């Protein structure tokens, strides 16, 4: 075998040509060619989601199912520390896939369905995740769906816009889902998202996705949104990006994601890495994920954090927040400095610039009508 002659081709979602014909600027992301932005640019796209509604193609993410009843899927609790028994049908939870060091191998959304369990996995992690899940779940009971696309519709106007095409979705509560019809096609809709806005994620057959997006775009309040704005929206909302703010060496307690673990699992343990997690809950952690608001300068991933010339941490996500109209960041600092309002120095291009620890989210909906 001669690897050097192998051409590395990125995968494409069903909507690839739809993106390019709508002005999408394609970039490699997690093994896929994905739109980073469309012709209007990241800031306009970001603001459009905050004020109206945007469509995101998130079909690169893994849609995975475990079919069966409790005896078929309950072993998942060994690696995803949530209480699956108490999860109601069509209810979703954000959680994490644990490893034996107490670190996070992926963050995910898990939903109980009438047929079993559905999980949405990060694109870059999905194949490793499936291998990990197969260590505890019979592979013959599972499926990674390559016939399905996933479309997020996010923004304050998303509910009214989607309701026109998919009757009944307006009655969904946050983090619940259900089976609906788009035209004559079966779709699964979940009221959730990753932007800090109200919104939905729609799982549907690849053969329908283009028509669905085209029909949504007929409404002038809807725009296509790329990965660039997806990143600034989630950062303003204080949400983690796997591979940046989370990784296999960071525990959910360090990541300030204790809420993503069920109370009973935190008490009982008996999941992978639970010894580390329980010890950290009892005795504290060395470092903690916090929100950081730089005074003026944009501090990006990798910027070192100092307090009185002592290095105390590092930025894991940082950029410009269009709705804040200023820089926003998150990162890890030593626990003793992880206090709201603590002033810090952020090293950018060899110089130190002030910032302070800020309680996330940076952007909160005011719900003023």
């Amino acid at each position: 075998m001669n690897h050097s002659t192998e051409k590395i081709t990125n995968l494409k979602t069903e909507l690839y040509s739809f993106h390019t014909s709508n002005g999408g600027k394609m970039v490699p992301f997690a093994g896929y060619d994905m739109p980073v932005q469309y012709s209007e640019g990241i800031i306009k796209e970001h603001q459009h989601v905050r004020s109206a509604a945007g469509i995101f193609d998130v079909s690169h993410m893994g849609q995975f199912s475990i079919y069966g009843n409790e005896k078929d899927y309950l072993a998942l609790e060994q690696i995803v520390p949530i209480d699956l028994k108490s999860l109601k049908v069509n209810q979703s939870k954000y959680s994490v896939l644990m490893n034996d060091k107490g670190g996070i191998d992926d963050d995910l959304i898990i939903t109980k369905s009438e047929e079993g369990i559905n999980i949405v996995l990060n694109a870059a992690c999905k194949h490793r995740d499936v291998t990990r899940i197969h260590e505890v779940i019979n592979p013959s009971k599972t499926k990674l769906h390559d016939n399905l696309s996933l479309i997020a519709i996010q923004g304050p106007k998303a509910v009214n816009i989607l309701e026109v095409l998919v009757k009944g979705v307006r009655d969904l509560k946050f983090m619940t889902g259900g089976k609906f019809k788009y035209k004559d096609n079966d779709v699964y809709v979940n009221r959730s998202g990753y932007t800090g806005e109200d919104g939905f994620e729609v799982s549907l057959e690849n053969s329908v996705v283009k028509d669905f997006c085209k029909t949504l775009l007929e409404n002038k309040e809807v725009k296509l949104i790329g990965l660039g704005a997806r990143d600034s929206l989630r950062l303003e909302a204080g949400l983690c990006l796997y591979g940046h703010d989370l990784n296999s060496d960071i525990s959910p307690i360090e990541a300030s994601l204790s809420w993503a673990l069920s109370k009973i699992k935190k008490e009982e343990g008996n999941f992978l890495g639970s010894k580390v997690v329980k010890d950290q809950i009892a005795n504290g952690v060395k470092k903690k994920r916090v929100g950081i608001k730089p005074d003026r300068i944009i501090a990006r991933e990798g910027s070192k954090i100092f307090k009185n010339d002592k290095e105390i941490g590092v930025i894991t996500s940082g950029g410009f927040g269009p709705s804040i109209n200023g820089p926003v960041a998150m990162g890890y600092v030593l626990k003793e400095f992880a206090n709201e309002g603590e002033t810090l120095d952020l090293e950018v291009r060899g110089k130190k610039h002030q910032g302070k620890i800020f309680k996330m989210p940076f952007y909160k909906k005011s719900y003023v009508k």
Partner: protein
Amino acid sequence: MSEKKYSEKHEWVELNGDVATVGITKHATEQLGDIVFAEVPEKGKSFEAGGEAAVVESVKAASDVYSPVAGEVTESNDAIVGDPSLVNQDPEGNGWFFKIKVSDVNQINNLMNKTDYDKFVMEGA
């Protein structure tokens, strides 16, 4: 005022006597996208040709702005520091970065004219 000249790093230079105005090209701003931060050099700072003189950041990334000619900064454009989107709106006019008193006016001849620069961009360099 002399004809505008262009560098391979996508800066433009316009010479007026022995003072050159420096900015980034329209092509550069199109590549960068929405510009959200600009840092300009202080008056009196000296640079070699090709020296890192300023910083421009889009939503996506930070980039250095190099001085295509050697000299000493006489003025910086504080307007783009206050409103970085000026660089997107008018990159080769009001969105200029700094003015520099050039140590050798002949250095500008090392740069490309508009036709050559456009060709350089077209060829994807």
